[in-house]
């Protein structure tokens, strides 16, 4: 039953509006609504994956076939992202039960619904609407932590994000004025004739910068450190781990389907390189854990942009490997920051207070740096071989920067690890050293187990990712699926 795929998108949206009303009458019933919806969403998407429904398929919404109507496009990549959204929504669920968290839970459901929409939508304007919906839910969740600094960081993020949405809308208007359609598959058909020019390039660059706000692209990422420092750890984990990757997914689809100009790729490569340099250096200088993680995630996303600039399918494999690796690691690290969020100096000797947390941190650090046999090594190795195979000197600069960034990463991560395992400061009793909260530590351990499992089964995981990359890189498959498979699915 492929029609069921709309439920993970519709049910959280419905639940988000239902929840505040139910919470008013009965908190104990209301508390179950969100987790139940998300668990059901996980089950539906997992079932789609397991039951071997022929992927990719396209689903016309509202009874009009594309390009007239709008459609959802579900390939392995979209399904994987949608599943990750539901699962992380469940893992980062704000469980505490009171009236205040009722609002937070509603916003979380809204965020999950909009993120699922971003993963599945096959239409440029719907992508824009879901993107804005993600933004609104995000603002609410960041401000919900209630400190003055959280409000200040929210408004700064809101203004930057507003600039982004104006630019995105401008890009969409340019594309529409040139082609008269916003369906991605239809655009892919028309692009070689109508968008392979200066106007198409302008449209891509405006959308790149616009969407890049959420993907922490180089010049428009100033919001990241302050937002991740002030928002609740679960929110930061969801934003850094998943929402930034969904913005990347939009850019990936646009690149594969519509924009093939070499200039577009070069701009992205340069911005990615600058992102890696600035992000990693700032992370090295950061004095508190949250901002260190935020800057490091800017650097990591810069690496993914470098990988995205590689025109061949191998580049896409590197993109996916880095993306899912970073998703696991950064979500887990931000869960550890729940409790460890303060100044780095305060964590002296924290390994004695919480050995498990310190061990997980070291595991994540090793994988982030790229120590074999952890998955991070394979992700980075794929990128290095792909970069080295390119002839243009710009890619070699990218490779150099990438290797240097790895050294800097090792420097600041090992510095923290050395502090953790070093002796505690003399005047601090061991009970006062900060320690991650129990639930957060359990969640972080889950991510650690996931990472170890991926390291054990690296061959099947690699095969799966190259299969997913192959499917996502195939523009003809996308076009044929959308225009052939929509008739009977209503």
């Amino acid at each position, binding site marked *: 039953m492929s029609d069921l795929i709309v439920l993970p998108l519709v049910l959280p949206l419905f639940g988000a509006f239902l929840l505040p009303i139910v919470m008013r009458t009965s908190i104990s019933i209301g508390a179950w609504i969100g987790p139940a919806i998300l668990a059901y969403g996980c089950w539906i998407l997992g079932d789609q994956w397991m039951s071997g429904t022929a992927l990719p398929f396209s689903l016309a919404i509202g009874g009009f076939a594309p390009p007239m109507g709008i459609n959802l496009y579900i390939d392995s990549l979209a399904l994987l992202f949608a599943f990750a959204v539901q699962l992380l929504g469940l893992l980062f669920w704000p469980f505490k039960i009171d009236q205040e968290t009722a609002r937070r839970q509603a916003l979380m459901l809204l965020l999950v619904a909009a993120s699922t929409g971003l993963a599945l939508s096959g239409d440029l*304007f719907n992508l*824009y*609407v879901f993107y*804005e919906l993600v*933004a*609104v839910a995000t*603002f*609410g969740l960041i*401000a919900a932590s209630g*400190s*003055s*600094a959280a*409000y*200040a*960081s*929210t*408004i*700064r993020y*809101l*203004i930057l994000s*507003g*600039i982004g*949405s*104006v630019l995105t*809308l*401008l890009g*969409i*208007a*340019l594309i*529409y*004025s040139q082609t*008269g359609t*916003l369906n991605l598959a239809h655009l892919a058909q028309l692009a070689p004739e109508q968008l392979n020019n200066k106007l198409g390039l302008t449209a891509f660059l405006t959308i790149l910068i616009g969407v890049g706000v959420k993907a922490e692209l180089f010049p428009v990422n*100033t919001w990241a450190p*302050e937002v991740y*420092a*002030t928002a609740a750890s679960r929110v930061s984990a969801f934003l850094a781990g998943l929402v930034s990757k969904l913005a990347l997914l939009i850019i990936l689809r646009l690149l594969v389907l519509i924009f093939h100009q070499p200039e577009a790729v070069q701009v992205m490569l340069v911005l990615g390189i600058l992102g890696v340099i600035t992000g990693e250096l700032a992370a090295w*200088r950061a*004095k*508190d*854990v*949250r*901002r260190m993680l935020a800057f490091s995630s800017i650097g990591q996303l810069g690496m993914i942009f470098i990988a995205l600039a590689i025109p061949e399918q191998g580049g896409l494999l590197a993109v996916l490997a880095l993306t899912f690796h970073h998703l696991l690691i950064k979500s887990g690290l931000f869960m550890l920051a729940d409790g460890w*969020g*303060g*100044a780095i*100096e*305060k964590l002296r000797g924290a390994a004695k207070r919480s050995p498990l947390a310190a061990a997980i941190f070291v595991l994540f650090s090793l994988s982030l740096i790229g120590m074999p046999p952890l998955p991070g090594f394979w992700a980075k190795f794929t990128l290095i071989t792909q970069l080295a195979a390119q002839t243009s000197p710009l890619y070699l600069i990218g490779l150099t920067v990438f290797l240097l960034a790895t050294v800097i990463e090792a420097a600041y991560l090992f510095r923290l690890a050395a502090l953790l395992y070093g002796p505690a400061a003399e005047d601090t009793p061991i009970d006062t050293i900060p320690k991650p909260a129990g639930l957060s530590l359990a969640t972080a351990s889950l991510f650690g187990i996931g990472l170890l499992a991926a390291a054990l089964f690296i061959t099947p995981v690699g095969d799966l990712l190259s299969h997913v990359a192959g499917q996502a890189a195939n523009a003809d498959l996308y076009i044929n699926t959308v225009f052939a498979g929509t008739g009977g699915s209503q």
Partner: protein
Amino acid sequence: MMPEISLELILYTTALGLISIGLAGVVLSRHLFRMVLALVIAEAGANLMLVLAGYRWDAVAPILTTLGEHPPMVDPVPQAMVLTAIVIGVGIQALAVSILIRIRQRYGTLDRSQVAERMDAEIADTAGIPRDVSQESPLGERPLPSLPDSTVEIRGGHS
């Protein structure tokens, strides 16, 4: 001879002009409320651009009154999209203004750099990073120059 300027050209110029004015306003304003207003102007420009993308000068409003033959119609899709974009924009602006009210209540100011400064100070305090340089006193008056990296930290907050 004056070159002929079409209405269409004027409208496209207006749209791009509004976007530029808005973006310049966001970058140049010192007051957070003005930044939000500048954003509103830029959004109006983007919406005008979207309407223009589907407009036809020889056509009528896209409402079917008779079956069969009908005159050429304006493309209704961009107009529907602009409606959506306006609704989203208004929602976000309302949220922005309500957050501004909270910031004004807590910090007593909406000046962009003052808010940024207080936010950075609050983040540093919450994290427990020792501040060896006072945020208020100018650096030049000290007998010894303070640590170079901490001064960069303060300036970095303004960006």
